[in-house]
């Protein structure tokens, strides 16, 4: 195996995106993504069964396209990498099975990768934010339909969860609020767009888990100092809409959308900043699909600037789920001397960030 500049193919299938990416060392050669989003629209959310079937249909074409675009053959690969978790069990299974089949058929080593850490590792690619290596005092804020997490990254194999949601993910809160407002699925883009026409101060929506009993102090942290909760916010949006309906009035949808978005973005960034400050984090990577949200990017940038934190945001095609990040993480691990995973590993839908590579 070439450990100096390994040629790695990465497969991602933890949710509704089927991604295949190829990297050589730290250089991105191709990044193919097929999404089953359209098929989930009529159900108002990702349906695991549909996602699994869609992965099954997309995986071979995505693989062919990625190899063709990179101009390499399976024979030339030094290794195959795949997301082993966290994610939807059935969806993960498709990518893992495909990767195992490829590994057996080609005799190439297989690397079973942590999805969340891959979101950080994508920054290691050439021309990306950490092309010269991970900076010291790094943190990551991952916000998507399935995740809301703030991580401390001491090294690519030394990642610690500082905080996460205790109920809905931020992206999920957008989807459910969009449902309450009759805006369809997915909720993120339409709420972001409508918010520009609304007044974010029109309605004061709750910022979950910010009361002293949850926050505590820096010295004596409460039970949820860096955690988020969006269930109270969801209930408040429902109540807000209902009171207009009870009077036979149209709810001010743009104002509700803007005020909702402000509540989410405010509490997400405020808690992330607090976690950074109290853990000496001075560099922050923003990742996950909700990184595409204009207001989240804007407020994160502003609060980072005033806290003296350098913010890194990869291009959106590398923020959303993709195969290149999986390949990028495996490539780095191979260069660092990591051994391949055994072929009999099983996907783990709740894989902790402390497990970067399955044995």
């Amino acid at each position, binding site marked *: 195996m070439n450990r100096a500049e390994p040629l790695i193919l990465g497969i991602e299938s933890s949710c509704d995106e089927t991604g295949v990416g190829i990297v050589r060392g730290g250089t991105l050669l191709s990044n193919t993504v097929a999404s089953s989003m359209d098929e989930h629209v009529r159900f108002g959310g990702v*349906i695991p069964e549909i996602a699994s079937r869609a992965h099954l249909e997309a995986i071979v074409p995505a693989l062919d396209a990625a190899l063709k675009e990179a101009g390499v053959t399976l024979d030339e690969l030094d290794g195959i990498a795949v997301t082993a978790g966290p994610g*939807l069990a059935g969806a993960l299974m498709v990518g893992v099975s495909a990767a195992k089949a490829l590994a057996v058929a080609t005799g190439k080593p297989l690397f079973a990768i942590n999805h969340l850490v891959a979101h950080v590792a994508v920054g290691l690619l050439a021309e990306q934010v950490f092309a010269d290596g991970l900076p010291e005092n790094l943190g990551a804020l991952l916000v998507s339909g399935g995740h809301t997490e703030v991580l401390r990254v001491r090294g690519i194999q030394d990642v610690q969860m500082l905080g996460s949601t205790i109920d809905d993910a931020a992206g*999920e809160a957008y989807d459910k609020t969009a449902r309450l407002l009759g805006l369809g699925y997915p909720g993120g883009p339409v709420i972001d767009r409508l918010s520009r026409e609304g007044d974010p101060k029109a309605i*004061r*929506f709750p910022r979950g888990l910010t009361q002293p009993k949850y926050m505590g102090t820096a010295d004596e942290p409460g039970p949820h100092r860096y955690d988020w909760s969006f269930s109270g916010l969801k209930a408040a949006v*429902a*109540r*807000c809409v209902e009171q207009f309906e*009870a*009077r036979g009035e149209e709810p001010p949808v743009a104002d509700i959308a803007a005020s909702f978005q402000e509540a989410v973005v405010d509490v997400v960034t405020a808690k992330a900043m607090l976690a950074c400050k109290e853990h000496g984090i001075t560099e922050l990577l923003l990742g996950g699909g909700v990184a595409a949200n204009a207001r989240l990017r804007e407020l994160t940038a502003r609060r980072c600037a005033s806290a003296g934190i350098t913010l890194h945001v990869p291009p959106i095609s590398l923020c959303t789920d993709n195969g290149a990040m999986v390949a990028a993480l495996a490539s780095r691990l191979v260069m660092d001397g990591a051994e391949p995973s055994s072929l009999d590993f099983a996907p783990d839908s709740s894989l902790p960030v402390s497990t970067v590579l399955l044995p």
Partner: protein
Amino acid sequence: MSRPLWTAVFQVADVDQTQDLAVRIAQSLRAGDLLILSGGLGAGKTTFTQGLGRGLGVREGIISPTFVLARQHPNLPDGPRPGGPDLVHVDAYRLGSAEELEDIDLEETLDTSVTVVEWGRDRAEQLAASRLEIELERPRGGDETTGEIVLDFEDEDEPRTITVTAFGERWEQAPEWAVDGIAVPQEGQQ
């Protein structure tokens, strides 16, 4: 459809009281029990389930199952009920029918777990012979006010009405926690 054995109604003032009730209910649960949770978006179904998890002493991290459909929380050997049942937490909102619910293989874990199905009404009843149906209701916006539109939701308590209805042999004798909530015993309903 079997008839309800009894109905208990509880008024709780906030999230803490919601979870305290859930903890008490959980203490009377055992492996094989089925709970069906109802209530609209934001009624507090996941919050209530977090309390159940605490009472059962299962692994923490009970978050919304909407995204993954079902999540299993194993019993903790060093928790309050070592050797007790696991918790299986399901969101049936996007499942169209009882058949689709079968696809996610709940039968496999039913006997060793307490199974909690959010949005499970008219879908999950056939999973077990007995069940508790738990309905969470929050005050509707506009109902209680003097007609004033409320625009500040910042420091709201979250009062709820929680209605527990029991079906099947398993619940013939109402547990202690239910007694306070049963106003009129529904005897002689046959």
